[in-house]
């Protein structure tokens, strides 16, 4: 065990020694831009033409005659619209690779050391027309053992990559009353973490709360999501989301059946405490079938995120605190099992490229509140640039069954292409 837990840091140090001096690729925000961004409607006629086209529903993107720029005769035609040949009409494409290494002590897993590419995620994003936008995320991933679940020979020896549609949805852009509708398969509006892809997490593994209640990859179900930016006299950001999904992909707490659906309601409240500090408080309620006859599971959850990042030196210093907690009521015939789970995460930025984090996990199980899992993690992250990060995580796990174990996880996430901004 001792030997194995040393592997992780060895990976990281080796990686840093090999690659750190070469890190000269930090870089900016280059990528394809919306082709319809810069039409130069200089002449009134051109404007009129556009206006008419818009009225006729022919839209907006049609480039007006850019040669007609009498107001700026001195300006050469090298304005913003220098397009990448051939890619103008393609969606925005990016590939995100995740390299993974782990060393696990005890006999918690069959494969105590593991290394390799764990996932390649392809994303495609574009406006469909003036009214909608589409996003697709396809991942090729390799399943791994979960040390909390005990050794799993089959998973340990899987070496094939399986393709999966992580998300694929259409979003409306122009509905009245600040409404927005999303339809397809998407990451549900549960808590704070769920709508992020795991490569964007500031730790390597999913918190136990997610794995034990919503599934190995969080709540990613197919259906419809309607959200409403609630107008209020204080100009506060309050967003109410209602999701109706199949329930088939809802994870351990839910099992879809053909007669019931999963309903989720999320209220997001966002406050600017001052220029440098923000607070987000989210409330989630959900209910859906749990696979036992016609019974249901109900979950109530709260998420709190506090962020501090001074505007002036925003690349050097920051602090983040995140807490998510849930209560679950799982109906099983005559009895209802109440259980709970939570995780808390802290992250402090040490310097421009270094972050130190800590996470605590506590989780019961939807159908068993007598057993619990706990985990303590410490995470060190190094950002080589905006497009690559290296994370090293130590974790002490106290599984519900079996002995406590120690493990070291290493992850390198790298991005190619124009990956859109993540939500704040």
């Amino acid at each position, binding site marked *: 065990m001792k030997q194995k837990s040393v592997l992780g840091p060895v990976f990281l140090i080796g990686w840093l020694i090999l690659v750190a001096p070469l890190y000269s*690729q930090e870089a*900016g925000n280059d*990528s394809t831009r919306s082709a319809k961004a*810069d039409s130069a*409607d200089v002449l009134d006629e051109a404007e009129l033409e556009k206006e008419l086209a818009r009225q006729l529903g022919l839209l907006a993107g049609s480039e007006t005659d850019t040669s007609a720029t009498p107001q700026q005769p001195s300006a050469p035609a090298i304005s*913003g619209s220098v397009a990448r040949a051939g890619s103008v009409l393609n969606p925005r494409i990016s590939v995100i690779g995740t390299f993974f290494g782990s060393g696990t002590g005890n006999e918690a897993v069959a494969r105590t050391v593991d290394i390799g590419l764990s996932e390649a995620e392809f994303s495609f994003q574009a406006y469909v027309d003036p009214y909608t936008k589409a996003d697709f995320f396809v991942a090729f991933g390799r399943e791994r053992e979960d040390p909390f679940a005990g050794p799993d020979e089959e998973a340990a020896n899987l070496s094939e990559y399986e393709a999966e549609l992580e998300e694929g949805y259409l979003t409306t852009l122009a509905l009245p009353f600040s409404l927005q509708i999303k339809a397809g398969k998407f990451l549900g509006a549960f808590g704070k973490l769920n709508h992020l892809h795991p490569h964007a997490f500031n730790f390597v593994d999913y918190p136990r709360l997610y794995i034990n209640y919503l599934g190995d990859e969080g709540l990613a179900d197919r259906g419809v999501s309607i959200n409403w930016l609630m107008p209020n006299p204080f100009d*506060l950001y309050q967003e109410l989301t209602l999701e109706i999904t199949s329930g088939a992909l809802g994870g351990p707490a839910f099992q879809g059946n053909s007669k019931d659906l999963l309903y989720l309601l999320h209220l997001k409240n*966002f406050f*600017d405490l001052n220029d440098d500090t923000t607070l987000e408080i989210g409330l989630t309620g959900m209910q859906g079938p749990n696979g036992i006859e016609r019974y249901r599971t109900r979950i109530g959850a709260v998420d709190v995120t506090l962020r501090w990042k001074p505007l002036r030196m925003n*690349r050097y210093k920051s602090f983040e605190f995140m807490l998510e907690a849930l209560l679950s009521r799982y109906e099983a015939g005559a009895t209802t099992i109440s259980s709970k789970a939570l995780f808390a995460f802290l992250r402090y930025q040490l310097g421009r490229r270094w972050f130190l984090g800590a996470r605590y996990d506590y989780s019961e199980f939807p159908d068993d509140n007598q057993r619990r899992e706990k985990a303590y993690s410490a995470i060190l992250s190094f950002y080589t640039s905006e497009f690559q990060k290296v994370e090293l995580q130590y974790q002490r796990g106290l599984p519900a069954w079996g002995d406590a174990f120690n493990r070291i996880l290493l992850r390198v996430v790298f991005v190619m292409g124009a990956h859109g901004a993540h939500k704040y």
Partner: protein
Amino acid sequence: MKSLMIRRMAIMAFTVSGLMTLQGPAVAAKKLFVVTTIPDLASIAEAVGGDHVETFAIAKGYQDPHFVDPKPSYMIKLQKADLFVQVGLDLELGWVPSLLDGARNPNILPGAKGYVDASENVPLLEIPAGDPTQLRAQGDIHVYGNPHYWLDPLRGKIIADNIHRALVRLRPEWKADFNRNLQSFKSKIDRKTREWIERLQPYSGTPIVAFHNSWPYLEERFPFDIVMFIEPKPGIPPTPKHLVRVIKAMKQNNIRVIIIEPYYSKKSAELVAAKTGAVVVELAGSVGAEPGIDDYFDLFEYNINKLIDAFKQAGIQPRATED
């Protein structure tokens, strides 16, 4: 929990409404509400729009415009905006798309009437040649060219034209006012620019070192030369090896001034200065970077003053102005 939240909301409500100073839709019913990504664009929009506009800039002047957090509260501003103006050229790629997606305001989306890409018709510098997919190997390179073009006052006139077109498009009935404002903005720029160039003329050709490549447009307009950067490649933090090279070059060529943006750590620049006896001067990258830089004219006034002070402090002798 609930009562705490309500209390927080109430506190926030006061703060927010205090800060907003009447930008709500009720008051904005007549004025156009213009949201811009950086304060410089807001200042130009104010100059052209005059009393007909109310502006809000998302980034602060002392903030790195490449890295702004897309806070949901900005979506509320964008939701109410009549006009949205961005620098473009992918400068804001990391934060504007998600704000626009969340704002649910189709009137300000790219291509719509209330959208302005201020880079339109602006002649750009440093458009990289070669295969764009290989560019990240060069560091923080912008595919479309260097995006800091607002740091040339004459290009500011083109920005003003772009905003003017959009304002007229939205409120043709105020066209005469917008035209008048635009003309007076342009002639003031012309007058002031001549003045600024004259003041720097005695130091024409003075070589200086910059921290990051934010200043090519300022350098092109005004008579000084940026010969080296403290960053080894744009966006890459300085390495000791590169600093040694910079120090050597500065000593050999007698370079005595280093300029830096307010949002970068001054540590490495000061280190180099200590080794070479150079003066480190913090220039403003945007309106609002320092107190007193309240509009687009103040921005250049401040930077020119700072540069001249630095040249004097570094003991650079002004030359006769006949060249």
